[in-house]
């Protein structure tokens, strides 16, 4: 079956304009890169709204657009949990409670904060695992892009991957983090303007929200679920068997809403770096809070197209849509977005939609690369390989390692080819590495008695707990191997997602308990923790700020809005 889209001159022109534009921004910014701080941290000069949109976009890579639309088709409105439960609360927590320590400590990276707060080994552990993770994520972005270009446009997989990687490499080499941040903002607006017409045309075609609900009810009943499962987010979360995610509310709230979400949003340097580049403490704290607004509205742009697509598969006659199958017979949900673009967009808009997709792949890659080169240079190369070199040397190293990072991600791209749903893979990686990390930060920032030995033991124990849990359990209908069960079989989960959530819960709990136990068994930290721990840090004065610039006010507004959204789509 051939899904190739027919691109015209106008479509190629839009894609071409965008690529040249991106390189142009890099060229203009080249003049402003003089020190390693300019390259790695934008010289801490980014306004809050730019940092906020970049914060939001850095997460808006392949896994977001393709994966969330795929989940929208696979699970329906319940996918919104990844936003309204699995993102907003953690973003608010980061802005209000954690950013003062990240920004105030003047650390250049998350691992560096760990060194200031704990010790060298905790930092090394985090720096090494983080660099591996960013390379993997960047590889996933590239793989997804190459596959898509191949299926859609008939472009050669390797050529499209290398071309795209080349563009990203050049603009980062030229403009460093500023270049990445600016392109993330550009990409944010491209996604918004590329996807709004898709949602509008789709909803118009299917008969509005009620038409969509009717179509989704047919999808649900054809698979043996209650009619509202695809169009409501919470109502069918009572037990694992009543929804296609195979997840119940406790696993959802604890696994996704607490452990995975806080572990990702609050400790992932890829995101925190955007806020660290902000021009002031106040701007840094507002960065994730500003990002909550677009984040809570994005389900309508990325999940709804997936829902429309699956509803269209129930249609007969003209205007119907059929999802292609994978070689193993399961539906290929990752093609939902491209199919919808081809279904609704004429030439012209099609070019815009594809440009938005390409932009999201590129900025996903760029986000990982800028975080990777910073952590490598500041937290691995400088302390352990060559210290006391000149600033110019580290700037040079930053550029060299960016090239190495691209090559490593290309290798990673070929590794991820065997997974069914990109999102599930990422959740698995995050569960192993990030879930215990949030226990470390929570205790590090809010319990002054936590020490380096405790933190390190907690991280190792948490990561091991994740691996052991994954090794002892399997999702239903899966064979032992990459999906789990490689140590033996103790428990079978109804779905891969449920397994991932519980892996995270086990990892976090192990990390939390072991950090406390080992900290208590060894001595209290023997250093000044001012600016690093809550109880040792003077409260920030923000009475002089206008109300709409105060983090607490913005945070409360964001939480209020997200509760309203949850209730509306209950």
């Amino acid at each position, binding site marked *: 079956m051939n899904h190739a889209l027919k691109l015209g001159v*106008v479509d190629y*022109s*839009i894609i071409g*304009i*965008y690529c040249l*534009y991106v390189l142009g*921004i890099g060229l*203009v*910014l080249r*003049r*402003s890169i003089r020190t390693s701080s300019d390259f790695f941290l934008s010289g801490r*000069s*980014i*306004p809050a709204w*730019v940092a906020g949109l970049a914060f939001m976009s850095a997460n808006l890579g392949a896994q977001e657009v393709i994966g969330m639309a795929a989940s929208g088709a696979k699970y329906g409105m319940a996918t919104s949990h990844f936003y309204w439960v699995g993102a907003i609360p953690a973003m608010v927590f980061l802005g209000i409670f954690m950013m003062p320590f990240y920004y105030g400590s003047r650390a250049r990276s998350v691992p560096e904060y760990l060194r200031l707060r704990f010790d060298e080994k905790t930092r090394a552990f985090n720096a090494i695992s983080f660099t591996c993770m960013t390379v993997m994520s960047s590889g996933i972005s590239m793989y997804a892009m190459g596959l898509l270009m191949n299926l859609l446009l008939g472009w050669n997989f390797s050529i499209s991957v290398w071309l795209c990687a080349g563009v990203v490499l050049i603009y980062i080499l030229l403009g460093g983090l*500023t270049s990445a941040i*600016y392109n993330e*903002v*550009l990409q944010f*607006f491209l996604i918004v*303007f590329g996807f709004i*017409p898709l949602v509008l*045309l789709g909803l*118009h*075609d299917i008969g509005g929200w009620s038409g969509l609900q009717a179509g989704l009810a047919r999808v649900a009943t054809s698979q043996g679920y209650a009619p509202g499962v695809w169009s409501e987010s919470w109502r069918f979360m009572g037990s694992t068997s009543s929804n296609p995610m195979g997840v119940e509310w406790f696993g959802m709230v604890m696994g996704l809403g607490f452990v995975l979400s806080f572990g990702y949003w609050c400790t992932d340097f890829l995101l925190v770096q955007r806020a660290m580049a902000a*021009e002031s403490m106040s701007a840094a704290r507002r960065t994730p809070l500003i990002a909550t607004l677009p984040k809570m509205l994005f389900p309508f742009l990325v999940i709804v197209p997936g829902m429309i697509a699956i509803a269209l598969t129930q249609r007969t006659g*003209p*205007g119907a849509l059929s999802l292609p199958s994978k070689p193993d017979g399961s539906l290929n949900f990752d093609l939902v977005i491209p199919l919808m673009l081809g*279904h*609704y*967009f*004429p*030439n*012209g*808009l099609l070019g*815009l939609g594809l*440009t938005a997709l390409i932009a999201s792949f590129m900025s996903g890659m760029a986000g990982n690369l800028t975080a990777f080169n910073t952590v490598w240079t500041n937290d691995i190369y400088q302390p352990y390989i060559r210290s006391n070199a000149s600033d110019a040397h580290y700037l040079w190293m930053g550029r060299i390692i960016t090239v190495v990072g691209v090559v490593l991600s290309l290798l990673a791209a070929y590794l991820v080819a065997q997974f069914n749903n990109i999102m599930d893979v990422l959740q698995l990686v995050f569960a192993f590495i990030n879930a215990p990390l949030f226990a470390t930060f929570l205790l590090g920032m809010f319990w002054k008695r936590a020490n380096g030995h405790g933190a390190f033991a907690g991280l190792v124990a948490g990561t091991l707990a994740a691996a052991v849990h994954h090794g002892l359990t399997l999702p239903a209908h899966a064979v032992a191997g990459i999906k789990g069960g490689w140590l033996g079989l103790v428990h079978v989960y109804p779905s891969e997602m449920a397994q991932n959530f519980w892996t995270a819960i086990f990892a976090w709990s192990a990390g939390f308990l072991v950090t406390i136990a080992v900290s208590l068994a060894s001595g209290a930290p023997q250093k000044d923790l001012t600016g690093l721990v809550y109880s040792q840090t003077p409260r920030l004065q923000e009475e002089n700020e206008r109300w709409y610039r105060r983090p607490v006010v913005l945070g409360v507004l964001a939480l209020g809005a997200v509760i309203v959204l949850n209730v509306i789509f209950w």
Partner: protein
Amino acid sequence: MQLDIRGPIGWLFTLIGALLLGYGLLTGASPASTAGGLNINAWWGAVMAVFGIAMLLLTWRRFAAAGKRST
């Protein structure tokens, strides 16, 4: 700050918007099955161009204000 990002955003959206608008007007409305008979290229191109120009106006206003302050 080195470069106000609103400028580049403004130019890019004005450019792509104008391109879509022009293309839409030249080729006419797209087939009824996809856009309900609406000339979606032209309309959406216009929306994007308006957004782009608004961004450019914001940048220019800032420049003008900065120029006044420095004199």
